[in-house]
């Protein structure tokens, strides 16, 4: 589950691929559950947003991308990055602010980067990576690569998102705009932040391709993301892939969640993407109950390795506080 994934020679919808996807979903889930636990124990600091319940989107999109394609995240991107092969050790150490973190402890949860895997950056500024993605797409289109960028329903209210829809369509940039529509911007439900029913309708004025999918149906996300990646690579321009999903935890670790009902959360717990994907694979005979248990265990073990790595890692030296400001 670490190192560069390479699906060459692996059939598009083979069991082996799907099992790997499920394994990655477990890795993300275990990682983030442990992150919450570590926050509560004060072993991690910072403002931490987890995407528990949204792993299907992360893994579906990552699986559709080629190794040389670029990815941009949001403030809630542990899963986006792990799905694409980010090193759990470096990520965990980064969240703790250790010198072995992927960003040497300078970034933190909202500002993770792993440039070797073309994980170009996450951001604490809602919608902030969308223009970055467009700029990288200027480069990617010369290389035959594609850029995917995540954003939320809340981000669709930022002006810059619309500026980018215009420019991406004007120049037919190879960009996949992945909307994780989880129905909330912080504590504000979508119905209170816009009259629009689906974020992807914003593409219509620009005749932009778009697709709405059940974001908790991992294979549906994969399929939609593949179409979008192919379109982008073939010069067909940008696509909005709107994934309808839900965050099962609070907006940030520590959120008292006064703004939503337990019922609603329960209902969505029933649609847990990991559970759903597992039953698809089990029904198909692609995994046994034992396989699944092993996956979970191996994910947890991998996460414990990361925790150990983090705990044993040194802090950055105080004297280095102003390093990396300039070239």
């Amino acid at each position: 589950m670490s190192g560069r994934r390479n699906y060459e020679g692996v059939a598009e919808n083979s069991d082996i691929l799907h099992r790997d996807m499920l394994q990655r979903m477990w890795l993300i889930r275990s990682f983030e559950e442990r992150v919450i636990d570590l926050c509560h124990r004060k072993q991690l600091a910072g403002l931490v947003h987890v995407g528990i319940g949204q792993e299907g989107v992360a893994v579906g999109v990552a699986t559709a991308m080629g190794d040389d394609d670029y990815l941009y995240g949001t403030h809630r991107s542990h899963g986006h990055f792990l799905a694409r092969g980010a090193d759990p050790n470096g990520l965990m150490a980064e969240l703790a602010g250790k010198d072995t973190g992927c960003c040497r402890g300078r970034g933190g949860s909202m500002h993770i980067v792993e440039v070797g895997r073309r994980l170009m950056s996450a951001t604490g500024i809602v919608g902030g990576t969308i223009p970055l993605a467009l700029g990288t797409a200027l480069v990617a289109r010369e290389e035959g690569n594609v850029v995917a960028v995540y954003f939320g329903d809340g981000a669709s209210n930022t002006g810059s998102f619309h500026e980018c829809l215009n420019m991406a369509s004007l120049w037919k940039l190879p960009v996949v705009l992945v909307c994780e529509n989880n129905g909330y911007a912080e504590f504000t439900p979508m119905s209170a932040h816009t009259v629009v029913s689906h974020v992807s309708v914003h593409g219509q004025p620009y005749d932009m391709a778009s697709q709405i999918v059940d974001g908790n149906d991992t294979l549906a996300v994969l399929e939609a993301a593949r179409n979008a990646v192919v379109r982008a690579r073939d010069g067909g321009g940008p696509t909005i892939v709107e994934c309808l999903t839900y965050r099962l935890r609070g907006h940030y670790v520590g959120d008292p969640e006064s703004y939503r009902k337990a019922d609603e959360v329960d209902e969505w717990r029933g649609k847990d993407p990991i559970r759903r994907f597992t039953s698809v694979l089990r029904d198909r005979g692609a995994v046994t109950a034992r396989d699944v248990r092993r996956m979970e265990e191996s994910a947890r073990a991998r996460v414990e390795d990361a925790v150990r790595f983090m705990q044993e890692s040194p802090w950055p030296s105080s004297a280095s506080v102003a390093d990396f400001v300039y070239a």
Partner: protein
Amino acid sequence: MAEIRYIDGLRQAIEREMERDTSVIVLGEDVAVGGPFGVTAGLVERFGDRRVINTPISEDSIMGMATGAAIAGRRPIIEIMFIDFVTLAMSQLVNHAAKLRYMSGGQLSVPLVIRLQQGAVGGWGAQHSQSLEAWFQHVPGLKMVAPSNASDALGLLRAAIRDNDPVLFLEHRGLYFRKDEIPDPGTVPSLSTAKIMTPGNDLTIVTYSKMVWEAVAAAAELAQRGISAEIIDLRSLSPLDMDTLVRSVQRTHHALVVHEAVVHGGLGAEISARIQETAFDWLDAPVYRLGAPFAPVPASPVLEDAFVPNAKLIVRCAEQMIGP
């Protein structure tokens, strides 16, 4: 006298002014549930959604809306959540809110309060921890205050709401749950006077917001070492109460400015320049400045600690200034 938290001071100020004056309205992201820190909790239930407007994530336009409501007679209080996001609202703030009175030759009035929360606390990283006040002191048409305690949070916010110009109201996240005594609810202080927190004779320490408490701690330590420091809490960052500063420096002959913002180009630069312009002959040493190094705010707790000035550094710097 009652003790309340800084955050309660803010809420009470808004509540009282909303009760008193129906033209006061609140706009901002998530203000309906109180925002991430609960400052505005309960207001929408009490004053309705025409006066407490929960907005989408649209900083520049919210700033513009608040301005457009202000010139038509409202007194909007807009919450920008983290000062880092005011970067998205600079055009409306600087090009319109700050300039409309002037550009209209005095026809328009912009009674607007912009609440901004800031400070490097808890490892929230480079995009949620900046101190950007130096930008705004340089913008004619804006005023700016930064309370260091619950009493000023309450009093200065009420004064800001009543003021007829745009006032940036800087709240420090690291002070939200600090408790202080509050004065008689009838009094609303002046918006632009500094306060001598601790009187002293050897050295004037000019500071504001959370750093006031580092300075107060440092003063206690310095007293033990025989150095009597006078702490001035600026409270108003624009305009500056230069009279109070200069009078103090003329007595102490030494000035040290402390803020959490990056030193280079910070508010300390202006204060230092002004002190030496007006009190040059009284100075026994250069005006010194303590602040953050020239770097973004790091997320790592260890680095954040190294980044933010503290009482120990103040003590060391003061000792060096005064000499043995």
